[in-house]
């Protein structure tokens, strides 16, 4: 049963037709066509699918797309200003916080949400905030350094 709805993603309204059980990550990737958000474990464990709903990080693999109607969804594509990367995104490149890149969109969204609430976190707070994001490449050290660099750049 298709349900006609409008999803607001990165400030843009997208008319979509969704099944009742379509998850938000599938709607973002398949119906809207924004493929920055990754489907990793698809089981609410790895954080690769992290998006913000009304400013708060949420695992989009475990959230029904139709529940996001009426909310503002922000994906990794919404963090840059056109072609200009955010401080946080640049810091990931500077620090070597990206290896295979699969976890990166989720890491960026969680870190972005943290810095919005807490512009000057300790490294411990950064690591806690990234607790729901798994990375199998970097060992996390360079990711944490990147978030710390971004925090220093914007304070």
């Amino acid at each position, binding site marked *: 049963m298709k*349900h006609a709805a409008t999803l607001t993603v990165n400030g843009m309204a997208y008319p979509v037709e969704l099944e*009742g059980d379509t998850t938000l990550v599938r709607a973002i990737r398949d119906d809207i066509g924004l493929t920055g958000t990754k489907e990793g474990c698809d089981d609410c464990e790895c954080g690769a699918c992290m998006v913000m709903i009304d400013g708060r990080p949420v695992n989009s693999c475990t959230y029904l797309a139709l529940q996001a109607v009426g909310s503002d969804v922000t994906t990794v594509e919404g963090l840059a200003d056109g072609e200009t990367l955010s401080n946080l995104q640049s810091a990931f490149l500077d620090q070597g916080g990206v290896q295979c890149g699969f976890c990166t969109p989720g890491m960026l969204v969680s870190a972005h949400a943290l810095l919005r609430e807490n512009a000057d976190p300790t490294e411990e707070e950064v690591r806690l905030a990234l607790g729901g994001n798994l990375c199998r490449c970097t060992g996390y050290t360079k990711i944490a350094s990147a978030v710390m660099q971004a925090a220093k750049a914007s304070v």
Partner: protein
Amino acid sequence: MGDVAFHTATTVDEALALLGDGSDARVVAGGSDLIVQARHGKSLPGTVIAIHRIDALRSLTSSGDLVVGALTSHATLCADAGVRSNWTAIADASALVGSHATRNVGTLGGNVMNASPAMETGGPLIVLGASVTLRSAAGDREVAIEELWTGPGKTSAKPGEICLAITVPAQPAHTGSAYVRLEYRRAMEIAIVGASACVTLDDDGNVTAAKVALTALAPTIIRSPAAEAAIIGTDGNDEALEAVTAGASADAKPISDLRANEDYRRAMAGVIAKRAVAVAAQRARGEEFPIPATPVFMKGSGQ
């Protein structure tokens, strides 16, 4: 997954009307349990009723009794000053749920109705004497939390009932509570074993009342009468705490699974219960014992 009708209810009456007798419909709050279960073979019902826009269920009152609207998120609960100081075990538990993302969408009502014997907040609700308000077309009824859970994933709620709120009574003076989890990692963890304690002291520091609950150690979260008897009437000395250890291990009914075997769980039941009682007693004496740290995402009002 299949052909699923979806409705968003904005009032409890609307949700109840859509739910009907509940035979082929379910309500969804944050979705973090329902959708994972659907992916693991428990198919969704024919109709899903989203209740996350019912703002009336998002209230949190923490003066006098604690009244938690069913949609209150773990992020909100573990940040609430009243919960942290007067019903501290609940703050301990909510702070340990999943990750920041899980705590943003996961609700206390969803947690309670999902009835997992490993849920973090269940033990604290038992030792603090919580009850649940359920509403159906036939009216409201109040169920003691220990009578709600009948098995793993099973409750005594009827299919047409919706959880409105969880009420936790104000606690006597010199009362402290704690939830302690044995975990292999901090984020996105399921309790290997967990224990909750609520301890009340008299003016001389002797334990006049105590409740101990064991998590992930039986088909439902259970009380440990032996651990409770071991601490009541003592001043919480080391000998009494050792008796708590033995009592909790004796009362545990653990299973073996991929996270731990039965013997290890039984041994750890005692250790973790002892720690929970010791921390609860420490808090009852007015000494600080930190609530697990969460990142600064605490401003959300719950989704």
